[in-house]
């Protein structure tokens, strides 16, 4: 089964070594050997990490260049930020309705002012478009 793209990106970034590699690639492209240098792991292990990052679309490698430097695909990050921002906005919408409700509730624990339409009717007037 093919994992969805967001899962691939987030699980690729769940590993601290891969996050570190991404952070270094954000500064400049690098070869596999350059990427392997600071770690106490083999070039093969670094290649395996790069494959996970590549499968998630986070990095690419030039076919032409002799040393095939690894390049970070910044667009994928932008897309992920967009997704999370949408999720955030939805939570914010929910909570601004809660703001309005809290405003209409008395402090002494009595009943809240009735909604425009009685529950379980659709959302109060104005919430539906």
């Amino acid at each position, binding site marked *: 089964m093919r*994992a*969805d*793209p*967001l*899962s691939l990106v*987030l*699980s690729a*970034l*769940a590993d601290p070594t891969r*996050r570190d590699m991404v952070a270094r690639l954000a500064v400049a492209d690098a070869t596999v050997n350059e990427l392997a240098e600071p770690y106490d792991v083999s070039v093969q292990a670094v290649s395996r990490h790069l494959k996970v990052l590549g499968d998630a*679309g986070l990095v690419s490698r030039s076919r032409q260049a002799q040393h095939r430097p690894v390049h970070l*695909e910044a*667009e*994928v990050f932008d*897309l*992920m*930020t*967009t*997704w*999370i*921002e*949408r*999720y*955030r*906005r*939805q*939570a*914010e*919408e*929910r*909570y601004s*309705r*809660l*703001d*309005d*409700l*809290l*405003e209409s*509730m008395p*402090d002494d*624990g009595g009943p*809240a002012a009735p*909604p425009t339409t009685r*529950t*379980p*009717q*659709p*959302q*109060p007037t104005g*919430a*539906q*478009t």
Partner: protein
Amino acid sequence: MTATSTGQTLITIDPDVPLVRITREFDAPPAKVFRAHTDPELVARWLGPRRHEMRIDHYDCHTGGSYRYIHASGGNEFAFHGSFHEVRPGELIVQTFTYDGMPDGVALEKVMFEALGGGRTRLTTTSLVDSFQDRDSFVASGMEEGVRESYERLDELLAG
């Protein structure tokens, strides 16, 4: 790893644990915010997504209680249910959350009400699921129509 804070609501997506955390402050004391989380009539007025009708089947918010509610939109119905594991007035709600369409999937949710002084409350909600994939589809599921478009864009990007 990722937190956005352009508005009042802060979302944190943990890279090491399949967890989403939402933080938001309210201009009301904890007891009041808590009541809006436990009284079913009040819950129905804010919890559902916009443009969906929210119908509460039952909502017994006390330790050992359970809930079930339905979101209806354009002839489609999505039902959710769970158990209240620990409910402490004005402080804490720990509950499970399951989408009826995926009965084996379960999120553990913790809602914390923290007094900030001046009659304000910081509300922190964490949702923990048992795999990163579930967590990520959970984040993605909140995005409604926008998500398909985004996926198409990402597919194009990945194919390129």
